[in-house]
């Protein structure tokens, strides 16, 4: 948190410099650094650390401003819709928005992608985006109805022709077993019946919007163009008893057995925190019937 406060303070100090712009060349920033360090009594090391954090979040100007002053740390009830008009691949049938948001934060935050996050590895910034209660993200999970389902395949074949020229020490390739085995794996795609996926959550509207607007595909097989989001709609909404994870006694996401207000649900085992595909972390839970 100290680093973020430093970044906010530095942001304020830089804005006081006439004509300051984030995209100033390095020599102007060096001059600005000398000025700021002198005025705030900072070491150059402290300035560099704060400046690095500023660069890191410069695509989210709102997060640099004094959060308390602008009131953006408040978590408010939000209704989020992703409009997807073409085909979408959903492996488990659901999309968890908190997992989508965490994925973006992890990948945005490092200079190279990170793909694994255990329960203890939740990104600290996620708490500023979505509200948590007892380690559970207060965010519904969408289970959209799909139609016109279609079976397609993902294929892989060992590049034998290239192996012949590029792998001189390799004498034999067994394509029927092991790492070189070819595959032809089916998967299902379909269209959203309503044309959109929707979620409810208690979250920070500025952070949620800035993260989601960088997201152009949802679901599985995004690299092959599936689940392209035509547009996002994020709006504050009214609440109900149990908002946003329970409605009329039905859980809108997997919830632990001691969650209040759940009376119309089925018992099962489910993973309660992202990544939700990790079945080794399943525990007793309620899900909607």
């Amino acid at each position, binding site marked *: 948190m100290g680093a973020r406060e430093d970044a906010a303070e530095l942001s304020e100090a830089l804005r006081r410099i006439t004509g300051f712009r984030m995209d100033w060349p390095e020599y102007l920033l060096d001059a600005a650094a000398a000025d700021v360090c002198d005025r705030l009594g900072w070491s150059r090391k402290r300035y560099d650390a704060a400046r690095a954090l500023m660069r890191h979040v410069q695509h989210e100007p709102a997060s640099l401003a004094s959060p308390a002053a602008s009131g953006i740390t408040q978590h408010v009830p939000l209704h989020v819709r992703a409009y997807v008009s073409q085909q979408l691949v959903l492996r488990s049938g659901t999309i968890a928005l908190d997992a989508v948001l965490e994925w973006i934060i992890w990948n945005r935050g490092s200079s190279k*992608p990170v793909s694994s996050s255990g329960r203890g590895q939740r990104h600290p910034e996620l708490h500023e985006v979505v509200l948590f209660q007892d380690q559970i993200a207060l965010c519904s999970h969408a289970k959209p109805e799909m139609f*016109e389902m*279609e079976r397609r395949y993902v294929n*892989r074949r060992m590049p034998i022709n*290239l192996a012949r020229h590029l792998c*001189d*020490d*390799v004498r034999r390739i067994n394509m029927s077993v092991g*790492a070189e085995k070819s595959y032809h794996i089916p998967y299902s795609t379909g269209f959203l019946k309503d044309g959109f996926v929707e979620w409810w959550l208690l979250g920070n509207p500025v952070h949620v919007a800035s993260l989601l607007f960088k997201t152009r595909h949802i679901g599985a097989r995004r690299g*092959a163009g599936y689940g392209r989001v035509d547009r996002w709609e994020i709006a504050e909404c009214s609440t109900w008893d149990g908002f946003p994870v329970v409605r009329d006694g039905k859980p809108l996401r997997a919830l632990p057995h001691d969650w209040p207000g759940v009376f119309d649900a089925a018992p099962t085992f489910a993973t309660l925190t992202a990544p939700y595909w990790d079945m080794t972390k399943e525990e007793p839970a309620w899900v909607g019937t």
Partner: protein
Amino acid sequence: MEQRRYEFLLRAERAVCQAEGTEGNHTHIMTRKMRLKDGSVERVPIVTADAARHQLREAAALATLSAAGMLGEGKANLTTSALRMLFAGGMLTGKGDPSNVKLDELRKLVEFVPSLGLFGGCVNSQMIAGQIQVSDMVLLCTETLDFAPEWIRESEHAKNLLSWRDYLDEEQRVRFDPEINREKQRLLAPGARDFVERKLEAKDRAHDEDNAVAKEAAKSTMLPRTCEVIIPGVLFYWEVEATTWNALELDTLHVALKAALSRFRIGGKQGTKHGVLRAVAMDGSILSDPSTRAKSYDLATEMPKTGSVFFDHVTANAAKVRESLAKVEA
């Protein structure tokens, strides 16, 4: 961090034949269900995003090997792991601890093999997410025009379009049986020639006797087969979206695009020059910068600069590229 979208219009210079499946001796063209503007769902011919993305991956991998001086007789000496990682994205081998992400090693690998960061893959029991989303190459026709980018819809290319049904053709080809050719029979060893002659006699006898079982047993291997193709001259539109974190990644992307587009061969029957595509127009936009979101930038001025960062970087780190590829488990 920068997110960019590239939009291409490609012309089929030869017939395109990416097969979806076969029925007997007939090959069907690849199609995809699309929801049209009127809400109906129809199957429309495409070239799959997977095939197109693979072309980019392969182009980037070959460029990396070339810049590192590893292309040529006996120069690469890759392991099968490295080959899989470069050209097929690797796989989870189960070696290593997937719950323990060694970020430093991952960063080094992505630094020395920049294409890995862009296209993603499975390395050392870690899944590395790609940063490129590639769309299908969709046949430009009356059914799909509404989904094409605005600049294509408003261009000359969008005029006089027909339904995709008019753009399909059926080819028939025959694999000849050399056994029934008298001249080729002279090349056979005496025992083999006797066998073939007996087989031909048995076939004639079966025909005279109208014996279906004997006919089947003595049948020649001549194989007529039919194949649906998309005719030459038609247009496809294609989108590539990418997230890049530095100049090297952006340049790697441009190298991959330029190399792949300079020689785009896609689908089956490439031995008979099917599947040759050529880019005829392109456009793009920087998505992560709201000020440029509405307007496009000129790719033609960007692309000539391609390669300076990528080739300098890989050439300067050739030894480390070689070392990384030798150690990789994918």
